[in-house]
């Protein structure tokens, strides 16, 4: 791979990030994130670039990148679908959704489609048990209360380049409680 580098603007952004923290070491997470947004992954060479930019030990950046699953240490599809199969989602059909996706895209969990569009991951709880089953698109938007139809529509939209909108989930019980408290 050709030598990687950050552009002037990115370097300025990194300086800004560094200023937010007492040490450059503390900015590792944010800068790795910035790098992942740029390259779509933080493979070894990207980690090296981050370490050199921040003047940190390569081993440290490597350790951080390897710790968090949200940093991709290999190239992934354009859209990474993290399907939750933890307890609540599982009970509400998380595996059905996962298997449906696998059939639909003709890949196994953990794999990427040949056209490089989609990667499916089976993940643990994403903290959205109230609207299970759910999945997350590329470390971003949650798609909640999934059904097979909803998944098909999501795939179609994504293929056309339409990201799902952020959904504000109502929590009726909580609202009721809040209401009661305010009265």
């Amino acid at each position: 791979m050709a030598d990687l580098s950050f552009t002037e603007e990115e370097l300025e952004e990194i300086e800004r990030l560094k200023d937010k923290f007492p040490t450059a070491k503390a900015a590792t997470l944010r800068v790795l994130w910035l790098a992942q947004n740029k390259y779509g992954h933080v493979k070894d060479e990207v980690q090296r670039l981050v370490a050199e930019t921040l003047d940190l030990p390569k081993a440290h950046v490597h350790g951080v990148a390897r710790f968090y699953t949200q940093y991709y240490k290999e190239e992934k599809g354009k859209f990474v679908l993290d399907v939750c199969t933890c307890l609540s989602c599982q009970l509400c059909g998380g595996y059905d959704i996962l298997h449906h996706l696998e059939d639909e895209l003709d890949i196994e969990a953990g794999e990427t489609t040949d056209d490089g569009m989609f990667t499916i991951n089976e993940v643990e709880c994403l903290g959205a048990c109230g609207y299970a089953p759910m999945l997350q698109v590329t470390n971003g938007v949650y798609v909640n209360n999934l059904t097979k139809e909803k998944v098909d529509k999501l795939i179609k939209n994504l293929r056309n380049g339409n990201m799902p909108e952020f959904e504000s989930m109502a929590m009726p019980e909580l609202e009721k409680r809040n209401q009661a408290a305010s009265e």
Partner: protein
Amino acid sequence: MPEVFIDGKRYEYDEEKDEMLLQFIMDQGLEVPFFCYHPSMSIPANCRQCMVKVGTPVKDRETGEFELDEDGERKIRWFPKFQTSCSTRLQDGMVVLTQESSEEVARAQKDNLEFILINHPLDCPICDQAGECPLQIQTYKYGPEGSRFEVKKVHKPKHVDLGPRVTLDAERCINCTRCVRFTEEISETHQLTIVDRGDSNYPTTGPGETFDDPYSLNTVDICPVGALTSTDFRFKARVWEMNQTPSIDITNGKGCNVDLWTRDNEVLRITPRQNEEVNDYWMPDVGRTAYERFNENRVDRPSIKLDGDNQSNTSWNNAIETFAEILEAHDSSDITIIGSPHASVEENYVFNKFFNLLGTSNAKFTPHIIPGSGDGFLITDDQAPNTNGCRVINLDETDNDTIKATVSGAKVVIILSDDLIGREVLSSSDLNDSYTISFATNNTDTTKASDLVIPITCVAEHTASYVNVDGRIQRSYPAKETKYTNRRLNLEMSEGRLDRFGTNFDNWVSEENKVDCLPVWDFLNKLGDRLGLDFEYNHSREIFSELSDSLDILNDVSYERMDNEKGVQLPIKQEEVKA
């Protein structure tokens, strides 16, 4: 004095030392099991093994008096959960229950061990750490009898070459992070990190990096399991077969305190011995390779140059006779003697004294210094262990050119244990016109160019003292037998199990590793006999006591003091490095 109660017993502690509970407990000779704690590094408290029950007495806020229960004992407010003793700071009146007095604590430690062992392979029979493994020892002492974990263990990379000298078995790792902290805090190369998480984490280097830290093998020593092993020593010997003898690192001027591990008179590995004044718990990797020069390429029996450049082994009698004839045939002013910063204080002293008795001028020596090779930590510019020792006994310090000039004018050159040709002070042609006699431990370019070579004992075979770059005098013990010493008779030598229980008929006992050599003083005794000199030293102890009687600087120094105080600091400063 503030007080602390451990298992019902009262101890006083020094508030100013700001000690942690675990360290204090160990300082009292008590024990709490632990893995990740190391006295010279930061405290992450991540192994969770040193759990104890801790409480503080309840005080009446108004009166400041201790509240008492109905029995008149102080009321104790226990911490809601067990504390890791390594990271608990001592407090006045603190009450501590360890596994010795609390079943709860014993149970907690046992359960923690069961957790640690979940994914730890039970391959102790083939693991190099077995026998000196904190995990093994503590599992025996405090661990569960078996595991309730019946599913498949997690598999991780095995035999990974982290660097040129360290091999990793990630499955055995318990992620105590001692190695990572070592590279961050002690050697400061930052080469290691822990990757991945949960049950699949293990230490490794950064992408594309290799663990070539000049101190990398210290991580092997501090690894509490067999995860990091020395690539060189791996599978060579079980620890309980070996024999451990305290000694001094002779590969540079720092004089790191070390242990020599021998089996059948072969030094198999060298590990650091703790001395906070010199090397703490550490030593450079280079120092550990010195075992090769103790075992291999030794000068074994005297050798003599007969015709042309052919050297041939000869008898001690012939060597002594030849030596004596050469000395008798030459005027003492034609004899040049060269001492050595690579030899001990005692060797240099008797060497110089013997030839001075014959009328030669004082021995010269040239320091072996490579400027810029040191790192300010444990690797020094000085390549020799005893440069200051030569200064202490007042040998003439000269530079390389002076040595060259003196040698070229001399008819007889006598060199003590210094590879002057190998380190490019002399070239072999410089010795062509003179009769050259070398006292040497190893075959070198200098011994090759010598007319007579007398094999002498190395640091692993004799008791002798060395003065390091900071002016600290420390001594070695014999670890390895020569043809003429015997472990069972020499009470200074330690005996390993195989030494103690072996006989000459056992297949683990051999003569091969005993070198046919003598201490310098022993040889000079014999030579003195032949020449009719009044010269007799039976032990280096005699030499040293003569030295301490005659030199002010060594006045109150003795082997006993060196042993008791882990070396004695002499009132000398490091002199300017002369290249």
